[in-house]
Structures are given as C-alpha cells and as structure tokens.
C-alpha cells in the first residue's frame, strides 16, 4: 500500500547587495552563510563538517544514459567545501549554489512539517542578513524567496519525494506514457493553487496575459529531462536517489514556484504526495494526457480558466482536471485511507475548498478581482499578489506596464520581516496561517523527529567536533585512528523513536556507534 512520502524542498534565494561593490554574488552568499556560522557557534574551534559530494551524480539519468557535459563533476577542495557548505543541527543544508544561498530542508514525512522547515529556512537566512549587516557596516543584503528576476533568469524551488522503486521504474522509466496520463497533467494543473504569481511573461506571446499564475511556467521547455538551468523539464530525470535504490527512488520536481502562503505551500506538497501514492497503488486509470504538455503549462499560467486539449480530443480546464484527481483521492481515502500521509483529511478538505474557491472566483477582463466568496485571496499567492498589485493600480493608473508593479512583484518575496511585503500582509492578518510560529521556531533548531534527519541533526548538535562529513545518506565520524561511516539508506531510519535513548545516554559518538553496532550484532 505505497510507502511513506518523505519529502524535502530545496529553495534558492535571490540575493541583492547594496553598499559594498567589491563582493561578487558568490562571495556575498558565502559571506552571509559563514557569518551566520561564526556568530551562532557552528564553526567553533575544532568543528569542520564537510558536505560529502560522493553520492551526487548530476549527469546520471534515470533512463539509463549519461547525458550532457561529462560523466563526472568537479569536487571542491576541503577549504572550499567548508566555505560553501553549512550542515545544520536541524538536519538541513545551507550552502552557496552558484551565486545563491540555498536552503535544503531536512527530510519530512508531512506537508505541514516540510513547509514549517522551509519557513525555518527563511528565518535562518533572515538572521544571516542581520549578522551580515552588523559585520559589514554600510552593507545592505536582501534575500528573496522567488523564482525569477524579470530579466530572463530563473532559479528553482525544487521538491523531492520518496517513491517506491517499482512504481518509479514503471511510470518514469519503463512506460513514461503512464506518467503522461497521470503525474504530468497533475503537475501542470496544480499551479492554479500553487502558483506564486508574476507580472508579465518571458517571451512576447500574442495571447500572453499581463499577469500570470506561475513564475516557472514560461521557463518550462520539455516534459522529461536532466537539465535544470536550460531545457527545463516538468519532471527532472536525474538519477540520484539518496537512498537504497532497490527499494526507494527520488522524484525530483523543478516545475514548482516558491510559495509564501502556507495554505498554497501545504496544499502543493500534500496533493503531490497523494498523487504519487495513487500512482504507486495503481489507482489512476483515466488517460488525462495532454496534447501539448509544455504549451499547456504556459497556457494555464496565462489563462487559468481556458480549456486545454487532451490527446483523446476532450477539452478540459485546469480546474476540471484537478477535480478528477481530487475525486480519485477521495475514493482512495474511502477505500484504503492515506495512512502514510499525515493530515490527509485536512489536505483533501482544503483541496476541495481551493477548487470550489477557484470555481467561484470571478476576474474582470482587466484582471480585477470581482468576486472571491471563499476568500482565496487570503490563501493563494498569485491571488494575494494580484490583489496587492490592483491596489497599486487603483491610484497609479490601470496599466500593467508600470515598472513599480514588477518591483512589488519581487518585493512581495523579500524575506525581511521589516521590508518584505508578504511578511507585512501576514502580520496584518491578511493571510491565512496554517503552520504555527512555534513549529517554525522549533525547526530552526531541531530536525523533524520521524526521519533520518533526526540522526543527522542530533549528531551535528551533540558531537560537532567528531563529525567530519555528512550528506543525505551518510554521517561520517573522525575517531582519530579511524573514520567511521554510518549509512542512512532508509530515509525512515534514525528517527527519534529509535534513537532518542541512545542520544540521551551516549556521551560521545564512539559510544553511540558501538552501541548501535552491538545492537545490530545481537539482532
């Protein structure tokens, strides 16, 4: 009956620096991360935790071929590794990716938790900005959780889901048409509640809208593929599973937008978990394949309510297609129950609520919000942003070509509590809060208790001078005469239920590993 849908988010942040001309974006990103590390004691004397790139295979494709530039990647040297990477006691990874700070959440079981962890990342980076400003007087760093710069560049908000190896092989490798009938139409249409909203488009389109639902839609170019910076695919086929491949696979999605609204974020993750579980349990049999999936992504983003063509000749709206997935999910809940998906009842109820809300939503031809009886404006980023932009248009002319509309589009995503527009809207009670502030604060310090992230985080917290490397699937310890590695090939192992007593009772990592070893030998 499917497997738990462990999930993680990798969020790249846009960086804007003022007041110091001599720092490149790469240097500025490293500066922020290392200032935070120094100030918070994560780089105390004797602490040198490397990120282990040994399990990264960016050129390996799940379809069995090595594509692109080469079959290997350059590994940073030890000092560069330390400069770029900061594994955190909450199980997350904070690092510099090209020229962006990137926050990869720890592995979570629930949509609520992963959104709380993602928001904990916002808080941590917000602290890093404060520390950076103090350290370099006169500097002004800003970070934005969004996906495009209005100058033709995009950066990701990637999602990773654990999937049963057999189903993954079936849908994405052996018979990708099965994914074309199920997962692809689901992902293309979920933007109606998961889109972050965007002024304008990337390419001049005859029928382009001045405001669209999704930030990433215009950047999607193919259905399946290995790339992330060009020829961007709806489903990324990177063969890097960070778990025992015989049992588990990773579904790596790069189509999604960065959400600020909790409701939209939790719904995006929760419904995707459900769709994958329906696939694993062979519960989706209707062929919903789209005539032209890549065009459909853009069409829905620009014209939410227009019908799109299916390969069987039908024409359905994105809401219609989402309704079909919701109906199957409700049926599954009745027949089997989503036992592996926490808060499944909430996700189903909210899915129904969102679709009802969108069906009742009325926009004018000029994109004014005429009717919103279910207050989706409080819940969906693209609508909240549209409301905000329209307020500005009220006093500054009706047009969509005002440069300040693009400024507001970007500043909505500024994570500063003082300067960010979304933060202000939330403080004013204009946004439906789903994830509690206490939970977010907790995940700034602690890993989620129910995955291997607990083991990784606790080791970094309790034995920082003994850990010499980590990645998603291993923790390595320096025990003087010998280095010892603890593999974490099952993302569900190493959780607090299994490990809490050990961490409470072991004074160092040697004792911890010896106790684990003795227990394994006994079994």
């Amino acid at each position, binding site marked *: 009956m499917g497997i738990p849908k462990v999930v993680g988010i990798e969020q*790249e942040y*846009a*960086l*804007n620096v003022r007041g110091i001309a001599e720092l490149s*974006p790469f240097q500025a990103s490293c500066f922020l991360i290392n200032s935070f590390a120094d100030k918070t004691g994560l780089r105390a004397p004797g602490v040198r935790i490397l990120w282990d790139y040994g399990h990264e295979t960016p050129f390996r494709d799940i379809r069995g071929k090595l594509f692109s530039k080469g079959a290997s990647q350059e590994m940073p040297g030890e000092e560069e590794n330390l400069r770029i990477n900061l594994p955190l006691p909450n199980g997350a990874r904070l690092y510099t990716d*090209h*020229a*962006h700070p*990137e926050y990869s959440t720890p592995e979570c*079981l*629930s949509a*609520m*938790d992963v959104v709380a962890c993602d928001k904990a990342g916002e808080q941590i980076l917000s602290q890093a900005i404060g520390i950076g400003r103090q350290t370099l007087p006169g500097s002004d760093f800003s970070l934005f959780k969004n996906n495009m710069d*209005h*100058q033709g*560049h995009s*950066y*990701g908000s990637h999602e990773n889901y654990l999937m049963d190896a057999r189903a993954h092989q079936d849908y994405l490798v052996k018979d990708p048409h099965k994914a074309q009938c199920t997962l692809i139409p689901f992902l293309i249409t979920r933007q109606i509640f998961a889109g972050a909203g965007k002024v304008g488009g990337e390419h001049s389109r005859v029928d382009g809208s001045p405001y669209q639902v999704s930030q990433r839609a215009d950047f999607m170019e193919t259905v399946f593929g290995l790339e992330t*910076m060009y020829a961007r695919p709806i489903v990324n086929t990177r063969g890097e599973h960070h778990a025992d491949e015989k049992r588990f696979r990773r579904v790596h999605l790069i189509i999604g937008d960065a959400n600020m609204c909790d*409701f939209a974020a939790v719904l995006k993750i929760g419904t995707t978990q459900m769709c994958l579980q329906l696939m694993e349990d062979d519960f989706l049999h209707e062929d919903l394949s789209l005539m032209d999936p890549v065009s459909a992504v853009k069409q829905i983003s620009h014209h939410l309510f227009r019908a799109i063509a299916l390969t069987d000749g039908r024409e359905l709206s994105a809401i219609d297609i989402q309704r079909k997935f919701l109906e199957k999910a409700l049926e599954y809940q009745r027949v089997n129950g989503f036992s592996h998906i926490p*808060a499944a009842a*909430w996700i189903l*109820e909210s899915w129904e*609520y969102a679709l*009802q809300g969108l069906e009742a939503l009325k926009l004018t031809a000029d994109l*004014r*919000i*005429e*009717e*919103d*009886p*279910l*207050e989706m*404006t*409080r*819940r969906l980023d693209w609508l*909240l942003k549209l*409301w905000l932009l329209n*307020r*500005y248009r*009220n*006093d500054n002319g009706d047009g969509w070509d005002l440069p*300040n509309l693009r*400024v*507001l589009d*970007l*500043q909505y995503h500024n994570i500063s509590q003082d*300067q960010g*527009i979304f933060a*202000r809207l939330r403080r*004013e*009670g*204009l*946004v*439906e809060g*789903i*994830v*509690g502030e*206490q*939970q977010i604060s907790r995940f700034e310090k602690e890993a989620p208790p129910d995955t291997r992230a607990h083991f990784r985080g606790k080791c970094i917290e309790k034995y920082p001078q003994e850990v010499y490397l980590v990645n998603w699937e291993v923790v390595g310890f320096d025990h003087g005469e010998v280095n010892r590695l603890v593999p974490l090939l099952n993302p569900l192992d190493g959780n607090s239920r299994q490990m809490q007593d050990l961490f409470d009772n072991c004074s160092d990592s040697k004792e911890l590993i010896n106790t684990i070893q003795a227990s394994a030998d006994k079994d």
Partner: protein
Amino acid sequence: MAEQRFAPKPKKKDKKKEETAPLQGASAISEEKKRKLQELDQFIDGVLEQAGEEFLHEFKQIEGE
C-alpha cells in the same frame, strides 16, 4: 507533526469589493480596517521609495541549479 489550523468549511460569503478582499468579514469596511489598509499603502510606498528606480536593473540574478 506540525501544529495545524484547519481551513474553514466551504461556505459562500457575501460578494466583497476587491479592495477589502483579504480582510475577513469586511462586507462593510470598519474604520479600523480602513486605517490598516491606509497603513499598508504607506508601507508599500516606503518599500518602493527604498527600492528606488535602480532596483529592477540591479536585481539581475545568476541562474542556479
């Protein structure tokens, strides 16, 4: 699992003017809400002023993976 606040049961509400859409129960705009919206507009003006004309140009990003 995270703390949760459950979404209200779907129910249709009175049509609202766009200007007040995200404010709960705003069929008639109270003085308090008017004040809040005015403050929000002032905040937005401050954000735009601080960003300045150069912001869009200097925001150029390098793409990431």
